[in-house]
């Protein structure tokens, strides 16, 4: 396997973008990455797009439709929370294997207002959400946090400090969706 170098990266501001679609958002980020690398889409030999909620929409092809249909292989991947890293891994393997010299990965997701993911869970037509526990992501990852507490004695205050730290970073990041600081007491009062 060959060494692989990241030549350029690009990111657009996190947001809901009700007036744009997935290929549009992906194309904007792709153009930024090409600019950063000092390359053109004509230099790219393989293109991979990671997306989950519109995974059947042929996003890689539709991004190339906007920024340059050069006839290269276009690949779409879906892998839950690892979707973006899976796209990156495929692009990496393309170069590491020696098959291509330049590849490109894009990760793009449009969440809309489906903040409580998994709420539609049904079994044979019957909704089980809130009856057989919760499959909503806040509850599922809440349970993962409680498992961490059980195993390592982690406290609610320690989890809250992570959120406080992350929000502090967001204020300095012009691409953050929410650029607000929160204080520890605010978070703790909400945490349980």
């Amino acid at each position, binding site marked *: 396997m060959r060494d692989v170098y990241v030549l350029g990266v690009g990111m657009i501001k996190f947001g809901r973008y009700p007036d744009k679609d997935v290929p549009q958002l992906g194309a904007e980020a792709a153009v930024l990455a090409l600019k950063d690398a000092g390359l053109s889409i004509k230099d790219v030999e393989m293109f991979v797009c990671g997306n989950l909620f519109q995974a059947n929409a042929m996003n890689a092809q539709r991004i190339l439709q906007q920024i340059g249909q050069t006839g290269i292989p276009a690949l779409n991947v879906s892998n839950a929370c690892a979707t973006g890293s899976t796209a990156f891994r495929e692009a990496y393997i393309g170069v590491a294997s020696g098959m291509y010299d330049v590849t490109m990965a894009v990760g793009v997701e449009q969440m809309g207002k489906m903040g409580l993911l998994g709420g539609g869970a049904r079994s044979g037509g019957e909704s089980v959400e809130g009856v*057989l526990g919760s499959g909503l992501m806040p*509850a599922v990852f*809440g*349970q993962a946090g409680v498992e961490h507490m059980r195993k390592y004695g982690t406290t*609610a205050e320690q989890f809250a400090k992570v959120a406080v730290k992350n929000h502090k970073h967001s204020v300095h990041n012009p691409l953050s969706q929410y650029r607000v600081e929160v204080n520890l007491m605010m978070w703790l009062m909400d945490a*349980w």
Partner: protein
Amino acid sequence: MAAEGSVEGRKQRPIIEFLHLPTVSGEKPYLAGYQCQACGASYLGEGRVGCSKCTSTEPLQATRLSDHGILYVYSIVHQSVPGVPVPYVSAIVDLPEGVSVRCNLIDVEPDPAKLPFGMPVQMVTCKVRERKEKNAEGVEETIDIIAFFFQPSQN
């Protein structure tokens, strides 16, 4: 669709297929398990192709899972979809067979101080809603939808 039960003339349907309901009164409802005959590992629900623990692909054996277990972890849910009363406790219960079940933990206060890890719990079932459906003869009938819950137990 999940197998239907019937007790004292009322039709019952489990909310999920691995909850088995009694067909004659006196029987107890139970969670269906599936056990690997090679390594003994158990799974929730039936219809697996193989054993993901030991990789055996021999047919698994249908079993009844215990109705007692312990509280592994939980999440106190304060916000949910419309129609779900909050707060409630979403929990993972570990059964002695090595099976984990996600459920609502009932008859407890939604307070971490009242939810010790490892707390013994037991399964109960109750009706959560009704369905009105026409049967094969075109007559409308009411079907009770039955769910399982876990609650604290003494042992």
